[in-house]
C-alpha cells in the first residue's frame, strides 16, 4: 500500500469516527424539528417545524404534553456551576502552587486530592446523604451537593494548574524577587498573568463538569432539583422531542461558553500587551 493509500484509509477511518462521535447528537438535533404535539421522537419526520422550541418557552397552545420543568432547575444549575467554578479554581491554583515545592506528605495529599475525581459518584453521593442524615444536616443543592461538586471538580482544576506550573520557568519569579518585589506581589503581577490561560482552562473544566453532574447530585441535592436531575425526571414518563430541543440549546450554550473562552484567551494576550504599553506611556 502506498503513502497516499494509507492517507486515504486514515482519512476514511477518521471520518467514520467523527460520524459515530457526533451522529447521535446530529440525530437529536434533527428530531428536535419534528412537528408537534402529535410527532414523537422517531423517524420519519412527519413535518419540519419549530414547535418543540416554542413549546420549551411556553409559546404553544396548551396540550396534553406538559412543559419541561426546567426553569428553576436551570437557574440552580448555573448558580451551582458558577459557585463550583470559583471555589475549585481558587483551590486548584493555590494547591498547585503549594505543590511546586516538595513538602512532607505531599505524595499522600496528592492522591487524596485526585481521589475526588476517581471514586464512583453514586457512592460519594450516597455516602454524603448518609452522613448528612446522621448529622441532621438538611440536603440542598447549595450545601451538600455543592461540596461534592467541589470535591469532584477541584482535582481537574488542580491537575490543569499542575501541568501549567510544570512548564513555568521559576527564574522569572526569582528575577522579580531579586528586583525587590515581594513574593505576594510577584504572584499577582508576574506569576498570575503568565498562568492566566491555564486558570481559564481550569475554570472551564470546573464549570462544565459541575453543570453536567448527575450521580453525585442525585443523592446529595435534596428536594430542589438541578437541571440534569430535572431532565432525567421527565424521561420516566414519556420522551418528547422537547428534550431534544433543549439539548440543542444547551449545546449551543456550551459552544457560546467555549467561544467566550477563546475570546478571553485572545484578550488576555492582547490585554497584557496593551497594559504594558499603556503603563509606560
Amino acid at each position: 500500500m502506498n503513502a497516499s493509500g494509507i492517507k486515504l484509509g486514515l482519512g476514511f477511518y477518521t471520518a467514520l469516527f467523527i460520524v459515530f462521535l457526533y451522529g447521535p447528537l446530529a440525530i437529536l438535533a434533527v428530531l428536535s424539528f419534528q412537528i408537534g404535539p402529535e410527532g414523537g421522537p422517531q423517524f420519519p419526520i412527519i413535518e419540519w417545524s419549530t414547535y418543540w422550541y416554542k413549546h420549551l418557552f411556553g409559546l404553544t397552545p396548551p396540550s396534553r404534553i406538559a412543559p419541561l420543568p426546567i426553569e428553576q432547575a436551570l437557574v440552580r444549575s448555573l448558580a451551582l456551576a458558577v459557585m463550583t467554578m470559583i471555589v475549585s479554581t481558587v483551590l486548584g491554583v493555590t494547591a498547585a502552587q503549594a505543590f511546586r515545592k516538595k513538602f512532607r506528605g505531599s505524595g499522600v495529599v496528592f492522591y487524596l486530592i485526585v481521589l475526588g475525581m476517581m471514586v464512583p459518584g453514586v457512592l460519594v453521593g450516597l455516602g454524603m446523604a448518609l452522613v448528612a442524615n446522621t448529622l441532621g444536616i438538611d440536603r440542598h443543592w447549595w450545601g451538600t451537593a455543592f461540596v461534592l461538586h467541589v470535591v469532584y471538580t477541584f482535582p481537574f482544576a488542580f491537575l490543569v494548574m499542575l501541568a501549567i506550573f510544570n512548564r513555568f520557568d521559576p527564574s522569572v519569579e526569582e528575577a522579580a524577587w531579586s528586583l525587590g518585589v515581594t513574593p505576594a506581589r510577584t504572584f499577582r503581577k508576574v506569576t498570575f498573568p503568565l498562568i492566566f490561560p491555564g486558570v481559564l482552562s481550569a475554570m472551564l473544566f470546573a464549570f462544565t463538569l459541575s453543570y453536567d453532574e448527575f450521580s453525585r447530585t442525585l443523592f446529595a441535592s435534596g428536594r430542589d432539583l438541578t437541571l440534569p436531575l430535572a431532565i432525567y425526571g421527565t424521561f420516566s414518563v414519556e420522551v418528547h422531542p422537547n428534550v431534544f430541543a433543549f439539548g440543542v440549546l444547551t449545546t449551543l450554550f456550551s459552544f457560546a461558553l467555549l467561544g467566550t473562552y477563546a475570546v478571553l484567551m485572545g484578550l488576555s494576550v492582547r490585554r497584557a500587551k496593551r497594559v504594558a504599553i499603556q503603563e509606560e506611556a
Partner: protein
Amino acid sequence: MIFDLELNCVGKVYDNGTPAVIDFNLSVSKGEFIAFLGPSGCGKTTTLRMIAGFEGISSGDMLIRGERVNDVPPQRRPTSMIFQNYALFPHMSVRRNVGYGLEVKGVAKADREAKVDRILATLGLEDIAERKPEKLSGGQRQRIALARGLVVEPDILLLDEPLGALDANLRKAIQNELKLLQKSLGVTFIFVTHAQSEALALSDRIVVMNQGRVEQVSPPHQLYTRPNTPFVAQFIGRNTVLPGEVAGSEGEDVVVTTGIGTLSGRANGALANRRRVNLVVPAEAIEVHAADEGVLAGAKNRIDARIERSEVVGHIAHLTARLQDGRAVSLEAHVDKYRPGAFPAGTPVLLSWNPAEATVIPAH
C-alpha cells in the same frame, strides 16, 4: 574596613544530606569583579543563589556591607541577579521590564523614567524599548536583563552564566561590554562560569571550586601561572603534573625527585615540610630540542621523550610527547617556534624548562 560581601565558613547541605558547598570563605571589596569558576556541580551556582537569597544557608555567616543577611529574603537584599536564560517578564515591554524594579520600590515616575532612559541608552536599547522581549535576539535579551538588574542600583550584581546561551562571537563582544560597564559603574560583580577563558579575561579575582570546596582564590594571571592544588593545575591551562618527593632546594628553586629524574621548580607559598609534592609544568613553558643537540649537557630539567603527535591550529602548534614512564606531556607554542613538520611523530627529543616557570605544590 567594610567589605561589600563576606562569606565566613558558609556551607550548604541539601535536605537529602548531600553537601553542596563546604566552608566557603571569601571577602569581596567594593567594585571587584569576582568569577566563580568550576565544573558542573561544583557548587558555584548554589553559592551564587545563597548570596541572592534563593537558597538557605546551612552553616556559617554571610554579610553584605557588614550586615548579616543569612535570614534576609531575596527582595530585601541589595543584590540583583542576571539569569542564564535572562528570565525576562514575557508579558511586559522592554521598558517596563527594565523599570519594574524601580516601580515596586516606589520611585517617582519622572525619576524612574529618567533612570530607565539612561540605562537603555547606555546599553543601546532605546530603539527596542517598546517591544516585547520574546521577539528579540539573544544578545538583545541579554542586554535587557543587564539593564533590568543594574537600574535598581544594586550593591552587588550576581551573574549566573550570563553568556552561556550566546554564540561565540556575540559572547566575545558582550564580554568586553560587560567589563567596561562594570568598571564605569563601579558595582561589585559576582560572575559564575564554567568557561575559564571568560573568567580569566573578565575578573579581578577567580574563585576556583571543585566538589563544593574552594580550591584557590587568585587574580587570573597568578591562578594561571601558580596553581595551588592539583585540581587547579589540571583545570586551568594545559599543565603536566609530575608527582615526586622534595629532595632539597637550590636558591629559590625546589628540587624534586620524580620517576623520570631530578627536576626543579618554584614553590608556590610554603610547602609546610611536605615531602610528597607535584611539579606543575605549563605546556607553553616547555622547550623542545632535538635529542642529538647535545648543547644541553649539564642543564637542569632535562627529560627524554618521543614526539607522539603534532598539530597546528591557527597560529598555535600543539605537540604531545610521551615520556619514558609512559606519561603524556602537552606542549604548546607559537607556530613560528615549531614549524609544521619540524618534529614528526616518533622523533626522539629532549624537553626542558626554566625552573621559575614550573610550580611545586603539595600533593593533596
